[in-house]
């Protein structure tokens, strides 16, 4: 097994690695499907958990996403990166899932807080992240998606591809969303900057 792995190219950074992985997927190389999953699933899982706010549902959608992607690999022409392509499938399926849930009036369980170790060094950061997620939940879904994708490192062009909207629209939306999030964080006492005195007399 290890011998076989030595002969395949994996995780080469950037376009070259992506093209090679795509070529292997298109060729039907078994190992490529596992590699693809291992490479892209964590990032997608974070995105889906952010959108759906339900771990079990996110896992379901993640699996559906990869199965759909693998079955449709022949239609993927490589115009966008694999991560972008997968994110587009994942977000579409996540919103379908949300729509289905609301149609059957299924009450979504409240967001599951993950157990936090008392000795974890990142506790403060995670606490901030969870509070921000609560704020994002209250924002417009399109704005929330744009911010979640930005958080995961997608560029404006990639977010435009994923959302199937023009880049200009996405850029404007991101700017507005960032402004709104900043104000909401300030209101929630999450901003470290002191609120200027002039804030008191809002006109």
């Amino acid at each position, binding site marked *: 097994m290890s011998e076989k792995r030595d*002969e*395949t*190219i994996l995780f080469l950074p950037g376009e*070259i690695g992506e*093209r*090679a992985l795509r*070529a*292997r*997927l*298109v*060729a*039907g*190389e*078994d190992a*490529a*499907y*596992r590699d693809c*999953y291992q490479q892209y*699933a*964590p990032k997608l*899982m*974070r995105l889906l*958990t*952010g959108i759906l706010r339900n771990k079990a549902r996110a896992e379901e959608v*993640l*699996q559906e996403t*990869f*199965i759909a992607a*693998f*079955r449709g*690999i*022949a239609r993927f022409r490589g115009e966008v990166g694999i991560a972008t392509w997968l994110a587009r499938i994942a977000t579409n399926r996540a919103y379908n899932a949300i729509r289905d849930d609301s149609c059957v009036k299924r009450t979504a369980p409240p967001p599951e807080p*993950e157990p936090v170790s008392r000795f974890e060094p990142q506790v403060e*950061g*995670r606490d901030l*992240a969870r509070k*921000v*997620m609560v704020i994002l939940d209250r924002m417009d879904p399109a704005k929330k998606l744009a911010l979640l994708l930005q*958080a995961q*490192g997608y560029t*404006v062009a990639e977010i435009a591809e994923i959302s199937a909207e023009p880049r200009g629209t996405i850029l404007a939306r*991101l*700017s*507005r969303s*960032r*402004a*709104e*999030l*900043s*104000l909401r*964080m*300030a209101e929630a006492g999450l*901003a470290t*900057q002191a*609120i*200027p005195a*002039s*804030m008191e*007399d*809002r006109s």
Partner: protein
Amino acid sequence: MTDCLSLRERYFAPGVGNPTDPEWVDHLQTCAQCRLAYQGLPEVDRALAEVARLPASVPAFDTIAGAAAGAARNQRRRRVVRRSVPFLYTGLGTAALAAGLVAAVLIGRAHQLSPKLLAPGAEIQATGEARSAILGNGVRIRLEAGTLKLASASKETQSLLLPLGRVFVDVPKLPPGSTVSVRTPDAEVRVHGTRFAVIRTSKDTQVQVVEGVVEVRPEGIGRSVQTIRAGESATIGSAEAYREGLRHSTLAALDHGEFAAAEKQIGQLLGTSAEAGQQAEAQALLAWSLSARGKRTEAIQRYRQALTLLPEGQRRLWAENACAELAILVEQESPKDSALTWAECLRRFPDGVHAALARSRAHFTR
């Protein structure tokens, strides 16, 4: 308020930095909301970075392994069928290739189509059965027969060497400036995104294009570049035959005193990747032509070059003639050096046709 929205759209985008636009600076002085939102942006970026770091436990791949294996199987099947079809239209040779692919699947050898990485300098051989491989930039190759070597590989260029055999290459769309090439002893086939086959026999190189366009640069600077489109094929005569043709026409031109034409053809001959002995002979012919036109100094240089290029131990009649002519030219141009030149002729060709002359001249000019 409209001002706020339009200005925020401009200055709250990710990566905008710290704008110094006076309009924006003035606005921040007067609008507390925008100032508050703007001051909080670093905190927004920090918070989003923390969101991206939230732990995500991913279900094991095994949960979808069955579906993935099914998709991979379908993909292999589809790939084989898709490849087979265009080949039916490109002649008997390629039809045999398609049949080979289908047969390979029928006898349950589909797993052998799994591509392997071809590292720079690595070589694969297809003896009896085809071999598949993949290059770092996603180019897929299938060697039907013979030997293939990845001669060089960089981010921009991947160069394959096919001394003899038949290879099918599937090149995805490449970034601008990137090329993939297959070199045979007769030609270089350069591509930017296509599917094609290269067949190198002992006589020539054949190129068959299935998709896209390829550029074929026959070996030798005097041969024109050919562009071959989908559905077309071309046969490029062997570089050896091309060189032999040039040699004959050069000799004929020299016989007729057409020195300019001869020198042009010698230039073309030297522009091919000829072996050292052939290059040496071409240099000697050029020297002969220059000498005939009275350009003795240049002729001497070329003769010396020819004799340097000729591997030690090779005794060729043209080389013996060249050595003697060099010595005679040196006698005329620089008599004091001629003894050494004759001595060199004797050393290299002690039993040559000019040995007696060399002995007497070496003694006479000493």
